[in-house]
């Protein structure tokens, strides 16, 4: 095994200014001279109730696993950096950005995507509410919005606190303000936010008109 200092020397020989600075600072990991060849690993996970066994490049995100390897293209790639929420899926009951998670991190996990929530003949209540309240225009962010919306109602029911809660020791209330704050990780370029909030209120059994008052 090479010592850290030897690795640093090799970096200096590679000739970059950065490597020279690294040699002077032993805390920094040396930049490798050569990239590794791609590595693959077996990954098994349950997606929408169905077990999937795959062999994937370790770099494959959960999002790309769904879209590129399993043709589950309902989950969308927006920014690919966790900023837009279009890739939101539910993993072991919690919503996450599938673009910021590697498939290998999800060995044995249960993943629910938009395809697992409902079908055109039998919509999930949140899907039906989005249709009823016109909670989208172009539809690109919608699968992520719907996965997030379902999880948000669970989070409020479970009593998770939020930024807009006045008293942290109390349970959060099903208000428009709470739902909007909790949905801030899902961006809608078309600006369908108010209709999305109405769809969520409908599913939560809250009177929309009362909420707006």
């Amino acid at each position, binding site marked *: 095994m090479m010592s850290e200092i030897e690795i640093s020397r090799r970096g200096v020989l590679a000739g970059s200014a950065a490597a020279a600075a690294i040699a002077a600072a032993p805390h920094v990991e040396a930049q*490798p001279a050569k990239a590794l060849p791609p590595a693959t690993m077996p990954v098994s996970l349950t997606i929408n109730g169905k077990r999937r066994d795959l062999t994937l490049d370790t770099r494959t*995100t959960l999002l790309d696993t769904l879209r590129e390897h399993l043709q589950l293209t309902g989950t969308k790639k927006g920014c*690919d950096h966790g900023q837009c929420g279009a890739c939101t899926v539910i993993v072991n009951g919690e919503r996450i950005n599938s673009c910021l*998670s*590697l498939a290998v991190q999800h060995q044995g996990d249960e993943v629910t995507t938009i395809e697992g929530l409902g079908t055109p003949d039998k919509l999930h209540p949140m899907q039906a509410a989005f249709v009823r309240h016109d909670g989208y225009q172009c539809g690109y962010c919608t699968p992520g919005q719907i996965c997030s919306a379902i999880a948000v109602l669970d989070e409020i029911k*479970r009593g998770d606190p939020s930024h807009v809660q006045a008293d942290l020791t109390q349970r959060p209330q099903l208000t428009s303000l709470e739902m909007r704050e*909790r949905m*801030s*990780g899902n961006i809608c370029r078309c600006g369908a936010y108010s209709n999305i909030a109405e769809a969520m209120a409908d599913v939560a059994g809250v009177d929309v008109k009362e909420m707006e008052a």
Partner: protein
Amino acid sequence: MKPFTYERAKTPAEAAAAVARQPGAKFLAGGTNLLDLMKLEIETPRHLVDVQDLKLDRIEPTSDGGLRIGALVTNTKLAADTRVRRDYGVLTRAIVAGASGQLRNKATTAGNLLQRTRCPYFYDPNMPCNKRKPGSGCAAIGGYSRQLAVIGSSDHCIATYPGDMAVAMRVLDATVETVKADGTTRAIPIADFHRLPGDTPHLDNNLEAGELITAVTLPRPIGGTHHYEKVRDRASYAFALVSVAAIIQKDGSGRVAFGGVAHKPWRVEAADDVMTQGAAAVTAKAFADARPTDDNAFKIPLATRALAATIAEGRSA
């Protein structure tokens, strides 16, 4: 993204040894910051040691009446803990002021402490950045610096530590517990955990190579009202321009730490000492050595106003 190999460690000491053993290895917890940076090839680990199986996901009482928060407790779980909500409200407030629900479900306590700066020049590989590429220069100095540091910065770096959670931990005097590759452990006061940039801005903190965070401990509760006032460009899901974490006692005394202003959560003892004299007195002490740019000089009066609002909130609580 550069290719890398991947393993899952079973124990903290095994994880630390695995990272120390392999050049270019890194720990992987939630991955929400690391993967983002790997996609941009700002981080290029050759090997990832996934720590999710280390069973560091519990919050337990300590023998002296405090709490020990496992390194892998998610932001969501930490913010929702009834003990934290009751006794350390500033911590819950800070966590729910940051990121989005999706990110908080994956982000961990240790990972959040290690979150790297959001300086736009650090994020742009076409720009010189001493933090990303030591010795290459700092494009932020003389560049677009509205978001960047006003104090504690150097001629090499004006980046800020971007997180919220650590600002609350700083005001709570938390301690970071670690294990090294040789199995030895240490406890680092949060005040000494993050570094100022100086002439080594590529070092965000004082962890050694392969040293793994195992927990963060909070001392016993100190009462008072707990506040986290975050000022940002939109009402939710944005980094702080300025944030104020404060614990205020009935007599008006208290403690305050500021986020969004420096390379680490910013707390000055002499500023805590004058809390009863009002916000302007506090920020005069806390920002006495400030070196803002033309773009971000507004942060200092903004910090005073945010603290004034916080103190008023404490009075009415």
